[in-house]
């Protein structure tokens, strides 16, 4: 029975167990032995051609690799701590100054305060007495006006 080429290849490449290989060797025909010999020729030709040709070139990878591997550790830049602090300080100063200026402007330009609706107070002065008018919100949500009279003695007014 003819041995398939894939089995022959496995035999040639030592991919069979020793028992399998031994059993297969018993079956080999002359032609199959010739195929094995041809595979051997090819192996020697390819192996020797590549190995001999590759070996004829000098090779020292480490000297160049060492330089390349050392490169990252030698070029690591130092952290710019001081400039960053200065920059932060300048920025903080600028922000604080701007806020202070804005606060001053708001204080100067703020709208004049007027009596609120919850309690308006006005002072009245008439001859002989003084009054205070108060307008306050009551429990029902309506405004209630209170007038507080402060009576003064005639002689006091006269002295004025």
């Amino acid at each position, binding site marked *: 029975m003819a041995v398939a*080429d*894939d089995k022959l290849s496995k035999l040639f490449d030592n991919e069979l167990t020793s028992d399998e290989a031994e059993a297969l060797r018993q079956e080999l025909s002359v032609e199959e032995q010739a195929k094995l010999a041809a595979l051997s020729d090819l192996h020697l030709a390819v192996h*020797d051609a590549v190995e001999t040709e590759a070996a004829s070139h000098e090779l020292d990878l480490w000297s160049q690799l060492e330089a390349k*591997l050392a490169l990252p550790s030698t070029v690591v830049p130092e952290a710019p701590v001081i400039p960053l602090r200065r920059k932060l300080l300048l920025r903080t100063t600028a922000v604080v100054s701007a806020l202070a200026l804005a606060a001053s402007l708001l204080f100067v330009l703020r709208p004049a305060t007027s009596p609120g609706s919850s309690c308006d107070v006005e002072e009245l002065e008439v001859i002989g007495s003084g009054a205070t008018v108060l307008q306050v919100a009551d429990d029902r949500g309506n405004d209630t006006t209170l007038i507080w009279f402060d009576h003064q003695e005639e002689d006091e007014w006269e002295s004025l």
Partner: protein
Amino acid sequence: MAQTSDSSAKVIPLPHQAGPAKVGDAGDEHRRAEAELVERCRQGDQRAFRTLVERYQRKVFSLAFGLLKDPDEARDISQEAFLKAHRHIGSFQGTASFYTWLYRITVNLCIDRKRKVGRGSEVELDERLSHRQVGSPADVLSAQKLSFNPQRVAQSSELRHRILEALAQLSEQHRAVLVLREVEGLSYKEIADSMDCPEGTVMSRLFHARRQMQQLLSDFAEDAEQEGAE
């Protein structure tokens, strides 16, 4: 019809058994030592990484050279592969060997390089080829020996260049499998790990790569005979 061999032909020397020593055959001791080196690399020990570079640089270069055929490109790729390995050694799981991981990086870099320069157009054709049934009548391994003595390859630079030319005509995937097997001596499993594909695909690619090489080199043998006759 194949003939069954007689008892005198029972013991057939398999040339490949005397082929390249497998890197993975070094045993548990080797694996432990390598795992230790990798661990030291992870911790930033450059001397450990240097040991790994010196151990594998020639193999990585041979692989890249076999795939690219250009020594300068092969050197660049080898460097890039080691740099990449160094950068990503933290993500190396350790489920496969370090060298299969390194070979995977190298193969991928080589294939990327080839594609960038627009030489990857033959991949699709060869991929279709590789899915054909192995051993179909139209596609069987040749029983013809090479007409030149393979031992002469080491002495003849012309022979070497003709073989490298034939190798260059394969697709990247087929060439990678063939070089990993014939030059680096990796097992099917290790090649599958290196190329991130199933073992069946490795077998198929290897079969077609060998078949193509036999055809390409048999043409060369005929040419050589004709040249000799002239």
